[in-house]
């Protein structure tokens, strides 16, 4: 007696019975394919980020010098102690703090204000946004160079304009106070658009019905801003502030081009100081410890900040 013939065909069984497509290796499962596609990126990440970071961590406990060569001798926490107790480092930390607070505050206020004004426009919003974004697209070195010319006390366009208004020359880059202010202004010119962009995204995402309800209740403009706009945009704005603060904390390029850390060392930031330790004296061990400490500061502050953000969201 022959086996009964099924009346219907089970597509799954038919499919499983189909031989694999020619050319496809039986070893390359989906998981294998995933590994094959992600491993180049992972290897690159390991080679260019993780391994150097671990190596720098190791070097930070040694007296290794990249140019002098020789074996790296273990010095324990010597490098870390020296950095944390150094008056020079404290001075650079203070300069960096003033710079970060000054630049990020100014950028946040201006960026949000510009975004708020743009969001209220119905015509030309796209064009305005694009125009405001131009500074952000330029290389910091290019920005530094042309601001250096513009701020030149003798030949710069800024002093020329001040002169035409009957005001005296200002030594923008060669006096202690004005040099740091100049750095903050140039950084603000370049990075305010970043805050503006994020704030604009937040502002456009605020549901319109909230404003409509407020209008029905005859709420004032200030009341609407304080109770609807700001609370809804605030978390997004804080993330933008976080990114900018991290960027500003590791400022190097503008200092290098505009002031070289001067006058004296009054505009030397922590990053600029690390560069000098690393490449003038080639004290690689100390520079590695310095870099690790800077990373730690950023990680700790970011964690605290993120916790605050999470609380804000929960609230």
């Amino acid at each position: 007696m022959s086996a009964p013939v099924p009346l219907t065909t089970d597509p799954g069984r038919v499919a499983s019975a189909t031989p694999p497509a020619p050319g496809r290796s039986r070893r390359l499962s989906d998981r294998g394919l995933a590994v094959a596609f992600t491993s180049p990126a992972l290897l690159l990440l390991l080679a260019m980020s993780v391994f150097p970071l671990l190596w720098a961590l190791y070097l930070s406990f040694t007296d290794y010098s990249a140019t002098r060569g020789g074996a790296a001798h273990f010095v324990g926490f010597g490098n870390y102690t020296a950095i944390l107790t150094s008056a020079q480092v404290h001075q650079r930390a203070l300069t960096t703090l003033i710079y970060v607070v000054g630049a990020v505050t100014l950028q946040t206020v201006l960026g949000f204000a510009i975004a708020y004004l743009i969001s209220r426009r119905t015509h030309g919003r796209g064009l305005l946004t694009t125009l405001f974004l131009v500074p952000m697209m330029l290389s910091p070195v290019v920005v530094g160079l042309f601001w250096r010319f513009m701020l030149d006390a003798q030949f710069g366009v800024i002093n020329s304009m001040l002169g035409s208004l009957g005001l005296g020359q200002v030594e923008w880059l060669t006096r202690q106070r004005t040099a740091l202010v100049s750095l903050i202004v140039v950084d603000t010119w370049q990075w305010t658009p970043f805050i503006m962009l994020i704030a604009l995204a937040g502002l456009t995402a605020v549901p319109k019905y909230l404003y409509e309800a407020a209008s029905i209740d005859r709420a004032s403009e200030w009341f609407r801003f304080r109770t609807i706009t700001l609370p809804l945009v605030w978390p997004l704005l804080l993330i933008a502030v976080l990114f900018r603060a991290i960027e500003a904390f590791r400022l190097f390029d503008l200092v290098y081009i505009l002031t070289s850390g001067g006058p004296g060392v009054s505009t030397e930031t922590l990053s600029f100081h690390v560069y000098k330790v690393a490449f003038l004296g080639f004290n690689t061990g100390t520079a590695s410890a310095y870099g690790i400490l800077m990373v730690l500061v950023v990680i700790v502050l970011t964690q605290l900040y993120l916790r605050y953000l999470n609380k804000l969201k929960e609230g």
Partner: protein
Amino acid sequence: MLLVATTLTACGGGGDDGTKASAPKAPATIPELTKDPLTLSFIWFDWPPAHALEDFANAEYKKERPNATIKVNTVPNANWHDAMFTQFAARKTDFDIAILDSQHIGEAVTNGNILDLTDFVKNNIDVNAYNPYLLAAYGQFPQAETGKRDENASLYGLPLLGDTWTMIYRKDLIGDKPPQTWDEMISVAEKCQADHPGVSGLAFHQANGSDAAAVTYNTVNGVYGGNLWDAKTRKIEGVLNDAAGQEAMDVLVNKMKPLTAKGSGNWFIDEVNAAVAQGKACIAFNWIAASGGLLDPKESTLGTTREQILDKLGFATLPSQKTNLVPLGGMGMHVSAYSPTANQAEALNFMKWFERADIQKKWAAAGGVPSRTDALESPEFLNAGPFNQVYTDSVPRMRDMWNVPEYARLVDIENTNVNAALNGAKKPKDALDDIAKEQQAVLDSSSRKGGGGL
């Protein structure tokens, strides 16, 4: 950047268990040269002599070695030291000949980055053709005493471009005769500034990058009888900031600085040249090798022809005061220890060729500053530029800075502090005392465990 650099260097550089590296020796005679096409690469900073060298070498050296092409790679002046020494740190260079400042030699020799040329020089170079101090300044390590050469010391380089400061003065504003003493120069500049509103009395290097402000202070220090250090005892504190050093700082900050243009506290070579070319300075100081552009009518408002400009501009040796010292500038050629053997051989051949009497004169005619005495006194050199006589006259008066492995840090300390004093960020006395203290700490910190470099 730091992470990648440390990884590259740390992975490639370990293994010799802390023993001090020493420069490998170049062969005493030039090995057989390749007949294949070869590019001989230099590294220098971007300024007119770098371009002049590439043009000159490709025009002249190719006559003897048609298969060789000369490439002078340039970087901004502020990156010059880093560009060379980060490659040295990686034990791999994309240049065959490093053009080092005289003060970089110690660092490169101690780290074993350049070849020891002592035997090569003995066999191939006529050392008697040079002022001994010039030969020593661009090649000898340990550093020679000012004005001398230690014939028993090793040589690691040969002169490429001599240089010193020239005083550039406006003949139409202060007269044909340049001031002879430093005090006279200051009073002449003061009067010129008062008589000509809009024109500053002085223009000189004040920036805190490279060696700008440091060379300015060191020059005034030398003229007023000061010393940078006691090389034998490696003592800076108490030497640099002695009475002569304090007087020099006082002259620089309180007498010279008020005669400069407002906002000139970050000026270096280009800015000083621009002030002169635009007729904004009565008296200026600049490196001779960077002064050629001042005679270009396209760059100047002082005249429409070179002759018209020269009617207004004069070039003179620096005024003297308690001494007649002038700063030693210029650079030497040094063979990278990491260059391929064929390129090292070509580099040695190039250096031997370059130091020949006839080539030195041609180099002078092409706008270079030679080092051989016969070339310095030749009409080819003396007639090539109005400032060349200044260089020849200045050679016996030269003084260099410290040629030690810690040079980069020493000069940074001096630059930042002098710049701070010039721009009102520090009192002159405090700045000088800080320089002495911090530099002494750098020299004394070689045995320190941890925290080096801060």
